[in-house]
Structure formats: structure tokens, C-alpha cells
């Protein structure tokens, strides 16, 4: 199963989602490979804490400079999780459709899940990242710019995806990230319902804004190993990807004494 994690604009949490969902699936006993397809810019390695182990990258594999197993980096904690880093020396235009297709077919044969961390927007890199995917998870933040750009990206996937061209359906889901419940309650932020109504796609998960994500990225220890609200959200999304029916948790602002105290010190 090849899943592309994409978005309309940058900075919505694609790489964070890719890293945590890849770990989540590996923790459920699946063989997973996470590919950083943001050619020219590397970020997934930092989030996974694997930046010091990179020798070869995804372009090296496609160009035949090395064999696939040489480029795959094993995760620190999960022996069933592998990582294929983005190239830094090349730009996004280097990708060739046939080579991308061959690589993804090769990975698909070896792994239960291939997670592609796609570049944002509608450049060629994005197209290559979604062309051969079975499914797409569109990461959206409840903001006007993110929702608008996501709609554009969804349209492009519908028009260009190989699955669609083959007469099949490319399953697409929305992941709403960085939700701030206190703003939603004050009606200062788009609600989940608003976002879903506008984009007209099924929901795969709701992830609250979580300050702990910053320190997780700082240290290269993904949040999913903790019991933080966003970690629990990613764990639930993992189960949904595996076909489990997990109820959606609505985030409420904490009321009562502790909430009031928190409000004082926030």
C-alpha cells in the first residue's frame, strides 16, 4: 500500500505526520518505509532523528549510483521501519516518471506500507510523489490559505493520478492538523465540520496543536512515543489506516480550576 502524505501549502505538518504515522504503523508490526520526496530540501531525517546516518539518497537509488538496500536507513527503535532520504544536491526537476514508478513498485513489493512525504503545492515534485500512490492523506490546518490550497491539490490528484487513469479510485482522506480548540470554541477558527464540508472528503484524523511537537523535533524523538494529545491522535490515525473503526475525539478546552489556572499562566 502506497500512501502519499501531501498538502496545498507548506508548514502544515506533512513531515511530522509522515514520521509519526510511519512509526505508528511499524509499532503495529507492519513493515514500513518512509520516503522523503521533497527533493532539494531534507526534513524528514531531522524529525526521525536519522540525519547522521545518511549516505545515499532517493535520487542515488533512481540514478543507479547505489542499490536500494544501501540507501535504506533502519530506524533507531523499530527494526521494521526504514527511511529513504531526499537528495539535497539535486532539484525537483531531476525526477523521471519511469524511474519513480520503478522505485515505488520495488518498494511496494517489499513493504506493507510505503509512506511518501510529498513536497507541498503543485510543482513537479508533488506530481511525482502522488502519481503512483494508492491513497493520499491531505494534511490541512484550519486556516483559509491551507484549505484553499488543499482544494487545488485534491483537484490535481483527481486529474493526474495513475490510479484514476487506470479507471480505479484513488482514496483520499483529510487529516486536520494543528487544531486550536479554544479558538474553535470562540468561533475564531474554522471548525472540523467547516473544513470537511468545504473539501468534501472523508476524515482520517484530528490532531490538536501541541507545543510538545517542537521539542520532539528539536531532539529528533518523534512525539508518537509519548502520551501527548497529538501522540494519541497519531496512534488513532494509525489504527484507522489499518482499517480499524476508531471514534473521532473532539478536543474540548479544559475547564475548571486547572483550566483556569492554565489560562492564567498561558
Amino acid at each position: 500500500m502506497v500512501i502519499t502524505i501531501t498538502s496545498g501549502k507548506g508548514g502544515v505538518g506533512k513531515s511530522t505526520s509522515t514520521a509519526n504515522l510511519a512509526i505508528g504503523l511499524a509499532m503495529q508490526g507492519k513493515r514500513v518505509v518512509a520516503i522523503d520526496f521533497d527533493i532539494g530540501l531534507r526534513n524528514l531525517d531531522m524529525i526521525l532523528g536519522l540525519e547522521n546516518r545518511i549516505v545515499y539518497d532517493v535520487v542515488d537509488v533512481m540514478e543507479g549510483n547505489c542499490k536500494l538496500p544501501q540507501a535504506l536507513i533502519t530506524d533507531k527503535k523499530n527494526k521494521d521501519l526504514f527511511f529513504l532520504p531526499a537528495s539535497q544536491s539535486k532539484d525537483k526537476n531531476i525526477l523521471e516518471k519511469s524511474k519513480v514508478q520503478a522505485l515505488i513498485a520495488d518498494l511496494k513489493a517489499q513493504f506493507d506500507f510505503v509512506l511518501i512525504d510529498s513536497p507541498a503545492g503543485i510543482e513537479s515534485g508533488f506530481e511525482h510523489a502522488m502519481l503512483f500512490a494508492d491513497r493520499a492523506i491531505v494534511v490541512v490546518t484550519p486556516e483559509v490559505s491551507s484549505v484553499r490550497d488543499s482544494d487545488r491539490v485534491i483537484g490535481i490528484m483527481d486529474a493526474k493520478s495513475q490510479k484514476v487513469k487506470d479507471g480505479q479510485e484513488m482514496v483520499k482522506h483529510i487529516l486536520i492538523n494543528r487544531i486550536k480548540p479554544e479558538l474553535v470554541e470562540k468561533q475564531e477558527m474554522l471548525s472540523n465540520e467547516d473544513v470537511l464540508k468545504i473539501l468534501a472528503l472523508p476524515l482520517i484524523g484530528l490532531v490538536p496543536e501541541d507545543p510538545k511537537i517542537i521539542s520532539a523535533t528539536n531532539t529528533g524523538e518523534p512525539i508518537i512515543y509519548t502520551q501527548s494529545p497529538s501522540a494519541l491522535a497519531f496512534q488513532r490515525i494509525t489504527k484507522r489506516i489499518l482499517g480499524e473503526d476508531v471514534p473521532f475525539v473532539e478536543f474540548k478546552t479544559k475547564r475548571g480550576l486547572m483550566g483556569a489556572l492554565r489560562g492564567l499562566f498561558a
Partner: protein
Amino acid sequence: MTLLTKWFKGTSSAHIAKDRLKLVLAYERSVRLPYMEEMKKEILAVVQKYIHTSKIDVRANSNHDIDTLEVEIVLEKQTPTS
């Protein structure tokens, strides 16, 4: 900065982030020149014509729009001949 954060400065996640970024960027900014080894040997040969040395360190860096080549030659201590 409060006292507490001062105590834990070495292990704070921002501190770890800073260290990781420094490492990664130092590596990424280093330019890998194909002729580096060859050039090192030649520079060393020239220097050795005049003075004893065996240690040479050449670093190429690229940051913003400036590329630099830093050559560090460690000279051996001259033993005074009387």
C-alpha cells in the same frame, strides 16, 4: 533566563536542536571538491620543499554567496641546532 533553565541548559531541547542543526549544516555547507585529495598532496609537496610538515587540513565551505577554501598546515617544531 530563569535559574531552572540555566541548570538544564545543556539538556534542553532547544540546546539539542542547536547542536543537531550545527552538525547537519556544517556537513551540508562543506563543498565536496573532486580534486581535493590531489590538491592537498600538491600543496603539501610545495610546503615540504621549505619546511618539515606532514599535516595539512583543507576545508571548503559554501555559505550564502561566498565559497572559501581554508588550508591549515601544521608545522613541526624546529629543534634548535647549535
